């Protein structure tokens, strides 16, 4: 399986891929997210096959007994090959990663729907591809596991807070032209479990953040990638913020400030600012791995630094994704995802 092949897998009907991973390509026949559509749980934990793309995206900042920081990622992408909604017309892609200060382990799995090899169900919630699984109660206890040729993780998650709707009650606008997705999160997951590293098992604790998002054309066709932050501050507050970059050098930002009790406050374009402070050479490209992030409305002016600058996801669709630490006006940790570099 080569990268091009998967790109085709993800873009079955795109004659000319545009933007990152073709997410800026209009496709007829699929449902479009609409503002004001109420989210219903647990049904919306399951797949929405009438939309073209969807993901279950969990990241966790963990630490070992001696305080050594780790990060893990567990992601299941669904891409419709046709707008029929039929299981056979879905392609599934799983990405898992385990990041330490010095290592970044990545694995990828692909599957066609309709066989049971991969899928997701709402109630009881479970999402899986091959032996990688994420299942349980997103407002209670759940487990998540994945492995690669030389590493593995098995984690137990416990919800410590409510689900958080991003944007306008789950309607998350992605460009001036109105491209949008349905987007909610569970950022209040505490974690205990075991990482299996080539050097041995490490018991870990920490916190995880789940993002659920589905859409049919989330990006405008001129948008080529994004810088996406999920930060948990020591105060208990959290920030989800992204900057979508267009090919003319302009960008579109959006942010949600989440109070410790889960109350979200959305911020529109421009309120949040992210500026690269330093770059690293990663996979033959220059990638900003230190950022200055500001949200003046909440007094945020902090520096976000990658735990391991080489957290490159060398998957079919490559991108950067890894744990970060926050210093400055607020202290904390989180995850950073950068695409389109």
């Amino acid at each position, binding site marked *: 399986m080569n990268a091009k092949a998967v790109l*085709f*897998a993800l873009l079955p*009907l795109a004659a000319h891929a545009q933007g990152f991973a073709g997410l800026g390509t209009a496709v007829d026949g699929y449902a479009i997210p609409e503002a004001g559509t109420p989210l219903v749980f647990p049904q919306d934990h399951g797949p929405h096959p009438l939309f073209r793309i969807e993901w279950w995206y969990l990241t966790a900042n963990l630490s070992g007994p001696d305080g050594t920081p780790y990060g893990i990622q567990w992601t299941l992408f669904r891409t419709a*090959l046709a707008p029929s909604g039929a299981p056979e017309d879905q392609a599934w892609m799983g990405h898992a990663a385990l990041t330490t200060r010095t290592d970044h382990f990545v694995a990828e799995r*692909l*599957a*066609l729907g309709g066989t049971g090899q991969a899928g997701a169900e709402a109630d009881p919630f479970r999402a899986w591809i*091959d032996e990688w699984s994420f299942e349980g109660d997103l407002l209670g206890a759940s487990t998540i596991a994945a492995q*690669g040729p030389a590493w593995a993780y098995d984690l137990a998650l416990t919800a410590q807070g409510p689900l958080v709707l991003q944007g306008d009650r789950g309607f998350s606008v992605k460009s001036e032209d109105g491209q949008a997705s349905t987007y909610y999160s569970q950022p209040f997951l505490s974690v205990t479990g075991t990482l299996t590293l080539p050097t041995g098992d490490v018991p870990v604790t920490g916190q995880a953040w789940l993002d659920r998002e589905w859409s049919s054309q989330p990006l405008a066709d001129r948008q080529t990638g994004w810088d996406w932050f999920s930060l948990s501050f020591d105060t208990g507050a959290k920030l989800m913020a992204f900057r979508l970059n267009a090919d003319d050098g302009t960008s579109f930002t959006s942010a949600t400030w989440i109070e410790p009790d889960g109350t979200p406050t959305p911020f529109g374009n421009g309120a949040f600012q992210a500026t690269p402070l330093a770059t690293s050479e990663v996979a033959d490209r220059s990638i900003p791995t230190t950022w200055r992030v500001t949200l003046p409305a909440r007094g945020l002016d902090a520096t976000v630094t990658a735990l391991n600058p080489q957290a490159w996801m060398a998957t079919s669709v490559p991108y950067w994704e890894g744990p970060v630490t926050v210093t400055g006006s607020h202290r904390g940790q989180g995850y950073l995802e950068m695409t389109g570099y």
Partner: protein
Amino acid sequence: MRALLAHWRRHPLQLLTLVLGLALATALWSGVQAINGEARASYDAAAQAVGEGTLDALLPPEGRRVTTAEWVALRRAGWLASPIIEGRLDGTRVLGLDPLTAPQGLGPLAVAEDADLSAFLSPEGALAGRADVLAALPPTVAAARIEAPGAPPGTVVTDLRTAARLLGVSGYDRLVLLPDQPLRRPPLADVAPSLRLQTPGEAADPGALTASFRLNLTAFGLLSFAVGLFIVHGAVGLAFEQRRPAIRTLRALGVPLGTLMLWLVLELTVLAVLAGALGLLGGYLVAAALLPDVAGTLRGLYGADVAGTLAFRPLWALSGLAMALGGTALAAASALRRLATTPLLQAGTRRSGAAYAVRRACRQALAGAALLLLALLIGLAGGGLIGGFATLGALMIGGALLLPLLLDRVLSLGARLSRRALPRFAWADARAELPGLSLALMALLLAMAANVGVSTMVASFRATFTGFLDQRLAAELYVDGVSEADLAPLLPEGARILPIARAPRTLAGLPGQVLTLRDDPTYRENWRFLQSVPGAWDRLAAGEGTLVNEQLFRRARLSLGAPLEVAPGLTLPVLGVYGDYGNPLAEAILPEALFSRSFAQPPEGFGLRVAPAEAAALAARLQAAFPASQVIDQAGLKALSLSIFERTFAVTGALNVLTLAVAGFALLMSLLTLADTRLPQLAPVWALGTRRRTLGRLELIRATGLALLTALAALPLGLALAWVLLAVVNVEAFGWRIPLLLFPLDWLRLLALALLAALLAALWPALRLSRTPPAVLLKVFSDER
């Protein structure tokens, strides 16, 4: 340099000999190599497409396919496996893989680089294959066609869904295991208890099987090249001999020997490159003409798909040119050495040459005898396929080296037995000419011996094979696609049904199959065992043992009575061994009751024993009753089998004829080049009163006589060759032994061919001689130095 080149202007025929000889040799060699290269590339492509030979596979139990549930259970447990569906659609291999889980570099997207996954996953589906394969697909196949030059030959690659739909199957033929498995997996036995792990070594590897066939071809190529080298050696030697005066003059004029040698080497190099290029062109044409036959052979014999078209490979061209240059160097080395070492003023007299030649013949004979001894030793010691070919090589070269001395002895005997002057002269003259002709005659010997050997092998094979077909295809009709229950009511009184069922199974570690056999007089009457225990049929019917084919018997080194695990948990002694020609698989036979207990394999067809007179009517009735089934009569099946056989050996036949043609050409060239130098010998004979016409006739008789002697010598050599081919090489290569049968009529035909070739080769020089103007003959005396 101009002085040296002038030689070729004066002797265009020699130039032609040199270039043509080298070109022919290169053509045959490179032609065979091109075929081999294509075949090898084809297996590699075929094996790569399914990961054969590199990846572990999981196979279903006999009689069923891997289910989706089994596969998904493996994936969910952490085993990275990917399904494969394989089948044939009107002769085209259809290969279905999962584009998303197939190992790196496998699958439809790996074959069709520019293709879009959605094309394969669309409801219509898509097939990727070479243009000729796609064109050969039945038009009724509903799927998009994607041209993919990188696809394996004879194969279309597609996704699982399309493959399942086109082939009408569900489930998978096997699962391949990806090389990089994740960290933690439960044991296979826990997840998929009924699937069997097959490591790459266990799989039937068409590459390994066909290696022997390709080795056969390579041997043929080398033989052709050797024959060509004889030509070149002769031509170069003659040219140097004739240019000796010119070289002497040049050296006397002060040209240093080194410079002279350099020019000669340069000249030969240019000629070799020229001839090599010509030869490559010829080789390409030979290969292109023969490749479809070779492809047919490999498909028929081993089930390996080989592309019927030729691709140009630069490495191949380089190796061909290298052979041409190396061959020229080899052929010219001794001539150059003699040139460098002979004293400046020594004349190249014929007598000194003749004396040298006799000494050389003795030395050659000695070497030849040693080689024959070596052949005998290697042959006795065994040593597998390589040993077999070593025996062949030593035998052929040894025989060839013995020839000059043998002929010399025969001729001197003839001369002693003759009383009258003219015959005595003729014998002695022939003997004197022997050194000049001996290379051409050795080439003829090799070609003849190869011809005798290979045709004896093929004819023995054919006779054995037809006998075998008569044994095996005893039933009057064969029908498939029906059940016994449906069939029975339609059969006339007294008809007997012989079910045909086979279950794939690894036997003694070899890829193979188990067959069922209903106890029926048909088998007892028709089958002949190669070896068997007493009462083998009765004991088989009683379920006390199994029968195995010769391939299994030999490869697994079984003996009569040896235990063999025929089915899971069923180990039986070997009761008998039957010949099974043309089958690459190991095979064992179980009586019907035991077979159906061990394998849930329904019969794929039935043989029907009916009165021969009723067969045609019954066939029509069956075809009408079961339109979907295939009814084949015995004669049709035999004809089909024989046609596969004939195609198998078409290549050897063609190569045979080519080699003989090259040898004939060598003889012609030798005679022509000798003709000019013979005038000083013939002029006195003419002056003594022998008519030119008589001299011409003597020339003819001499040439055909020598050819006859050579052919006679070739006969035992050829038979020895046939024996090695049948008893050593074939057993190793194919796994069966064929009795050596003699076909004297074939020899007569060959003999006639050889004589005809010699006659044709001698005709022109003889005609020229008989028409030589007396003035030219007279001039010989005035020119005498």
